[in-house]
């Protein structure tokens, strides 16, 4: 097996397969401060993100429910891990860096905090899969902005 799909390792690294199969944060939060949905009509992926803030306004916890591919689920889960303890503006900056990495496959601005997200950089080869990776982030950012409605993913990736 491994031989045949060796060239898949760049895209489907073990960490993606693992988080895609067994997301740690794949659940609706019992109590939450904000939520938002993301939707990619082109492929049918759907995600909802819930947020709880700490007293200092940083993100205390993130949960999500996703219907989608391994990449979107893994991306949501890795996102949830990464943003824990961060401020809103930190998170927005992180998304910008992540999005750039997903689009281009490289990350000049990456610091160690991005390490957890780096396995997702392989999607840059597939513009349509880039959207899978960024969908949960769009929902997160919408939730942070306090737009709890139905957030559509635009096709601008």
């Amino acid at each position, binding site marked *: *097996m491994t031989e*045949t*799909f060796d*060239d*898949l390792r760049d*895209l*489907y690294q073990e960490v993606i*397969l693992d988080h895609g*199969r067994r997301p740690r944060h794949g659940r609706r939060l019992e109590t939450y401060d904000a939520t938002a949905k993301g939707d990619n009509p*082109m*492929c*049918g*992926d*759907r995600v909802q993100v819930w947020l709880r803030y700490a007293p200092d306004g940083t993100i205390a916890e993130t949960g999500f429910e996703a*219907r*989608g*591919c*391994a*990449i979107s689920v893994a991306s949501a889960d890795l996102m949830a891990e990464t943003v824990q303890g961060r401020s809103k503006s930190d998170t927005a900056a992180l998304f910008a860096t992540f999005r750039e990495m997903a689009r281009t496959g490289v990350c000049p601005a990456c610091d160690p905090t991005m390490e957890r997200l780096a396995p997702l950089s392989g999607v840059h080869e*597939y513009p349509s*899969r880039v959207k*899978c990776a960024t969908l949960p982030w769009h929902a997160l950012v919408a939730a942070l902005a306090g737009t709890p409605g139905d957030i559509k993913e635009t096709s601008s990736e």
Partner: protein
Amino acid sequence: MTASFDVARIREDFPILRQTIRGKPLVYLDSGASAQKPRVVIDAMVQCMETQYANIHRGLHWMSERTTDAYEAARDAVATLMNARDRSEIVFTNSVTGALNLVAHSYGRGILKPGQAVVISAMEHHSNIVPWQMLRDSHGIELRVAPIDDAGELDMGAFESLLDDGKVGLVSITHMSNVLGTVTPAERIVKIAHAHGAKVLFDGSQAIVHRRVDVQAIGCDFYAWTGHKLYGPTGIGVLWARREILEAMPPFMGGGDMISSVTYEKSTWAQVPHKFEAGTPAIVEGIGLKAAVDYVQSIGYEAMAAHEATLTDHAIARLSAIEGIKIYGRAQDRGGVISFTLDKAHAHDVATLLDRQGIAVRAGHHCAQPLMQRLGVDSTSRASFGVYTTLEEIDVLADTLTRVREFFTR
């Protein structure tokens, strides 16, 4: 393979099949989305642009006359292909979507009356749903949906009962599902519809790729399809309709070529089919489409259909044996389009993993969201075949799918 069908020779007609993808030979199993183009189609387009290109229908010079002839020869070729009674029954549009919208606008708003109904089926492409929804919302036409059974076949009893109240003016239904492969019983549909006073339009985008379409034998009133799936160029589609119906329909778009005379007060329309062909048409694409039709005719529908049946049987046998696979659609009469899901892997991941091995399939809702809902899925993967598809390619697909599942199961 049947004896008369030499797929190796046919593959030589398609330059793209020599491509490798990521160092692996291309296995193109996405012909249902769009077919590859044989050399003769590419050459016809190039030859037109290099030796005689000009705008058509109103030029008096040599190139315009030659190009007009070549473009109009496409109409003859298509009329023959479909066994139309008259070449003037062939209207060229930009795609089947354009053709279906033409009928929805012109026949729908010009001939159907508010309070009448249009019947579609539960396995339509968005192109044969949305135009009728727009007609419903703007013109007070009721939209009815004929259900399918679990095998993916049209429920004929339910279909007939939708027509019972005599309100249905038009049945617009796929001749072959782009998701399930189901071929619908065209002649029976027409008999039932006509008995209830309804006209019938077939979306033949998939069907005409796979079997001979004889509009007179089918007895329908409209038949629409799209060039790029029949090995032809993008940017051109076909609407066939009975001449008397076309004549009764008001024009859809206004512009050059579709008029007889224009004054500010009043314009009069050209004869059919020109009444429906406003503006400079897809000239080079029409000429390419003729080459595609000639190509298909030279292979012959009988040989193509036999080849496809062999492929489809083999594919269903091989894919069914994969653990955790689910194949959608088990119609008696079906074409070479197979949708499936794997239990451990999402359709998009499947498509991407296959792509890494050079295998092109489609994954998603296939522009048929209501059907997806009926099937209880968000998306499926779909393999679809063309004249150039081989049994070996299907084996590669099946073997790779087995490994894809293992990859996601470990």
